[in-house]
């Protein structure tokens, strides 16, 4: 009898967490639309440099290539964190989250270095439509990664305090989904902005 009730309560809780996952998925799709509009803006304004520097003159691919592989690897390690969690391995989970966060931090520091360099070379956000669109698109992605980093640290603290339960389990699943999503957006930034820019 008591078992039955527990099972029932557990099922209800489970449904709620599943619904929250679903809600987050809907947010991700709306975020996808946000990036879609920024990509459309970038493509439309591409080439309008108002006599200023063009992207192919200033882009330095080694840094961008490093950023790409770092973010891709961090997407993979966030998946490994979820795997550790599913095995009930809290140490493994937190360890992989730390690796993911460190990779994310190095991505952001490379991006900031790139932005600073571009500004020094005369391509600021107000230089031309080309660079306004560039900084808005790439900067919005960078902002997402930065928010993700803070969020990931908060989840690690919660995991340290409460361990793996249905709530922290959902939170880890969500941050991992978010991280994969950011990597997907970056693939398109890398392709459309950088590769096609220097092509």
């Amino acid at each position, binding site marked *: 009898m008591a078992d039955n009730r527990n099972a029932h309560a557990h099922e209800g809780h489970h449904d709620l967490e599943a619904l929250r996952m*679903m809600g987050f998925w809907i947010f991700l*799709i709306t975020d996808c639309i946000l990036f879609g509009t920024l990509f459309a803006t970038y493509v439309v304004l591409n080439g309008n440099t108002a006599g200023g520097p063009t992207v192919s003159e200033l882009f330095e691919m080694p840094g961008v290539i490093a950023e790409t592989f770092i973010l891709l690897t961090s997407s993979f390690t966030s998946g490994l964190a979820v795997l550790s969690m599913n095995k009930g391995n809290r140490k493994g989970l937190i360890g992989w989250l730390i690796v993911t966060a460190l990779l994310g931090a190095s991505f952001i520091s490379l991006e900031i270095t790139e932005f600073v360099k571009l500004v020094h070379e005369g391509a600021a956000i107000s230089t031309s439509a080309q660079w306004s669109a560039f900084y808005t698109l790439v900067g919005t992605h960078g902002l997402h990664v930065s928010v993700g980093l803070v969020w990931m640290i908060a989840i690690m603290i919660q995991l340290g305090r409460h361990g793996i339960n249905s709530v922290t389990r959902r939170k880890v699943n969500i941050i991992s989904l978010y991280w994969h999503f950011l990597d*997907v957006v970056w693939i398109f930034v890398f392709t459309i902005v950088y590769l096609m820019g220097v092509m």
Partner: protein
Amino acid sequence: MAQRHSAAGAHDSHGTPGTHDSHDSHEAHGSLKSYVIGFLMSLVLTAIPLIVVLNHLLEGKAATLLLLGSAVLQFVVQLVYFMHLKEEGKPRYNLMVLILGLFIVLTIVAGSIWIMTYNKVA
């Protein structure tokens, strides 16, 4: 309270061998194999366009097509192997929302490009 506690305890012990199989198939997706496959495919799909662009192997439309094709393919690979979209139970709300979102994105992007092409001052 005590009952609730024991229920939570039972939930936490899902990681013990033997009990977590049925649970995994329901909520927790993915295996090491699927993540490794996804990662390797993503690496290859990143390397191909990179090599093509850096060595100027293709030009014009062919290059654009290859680049966009690799990006879209990598998107699909990550959806399947990292985000486990295929393992979703029915009804597949996640997939439906995704398709709706992609439809909106494509409309915005293609529509903007189409309109602005004719706005260019020659």
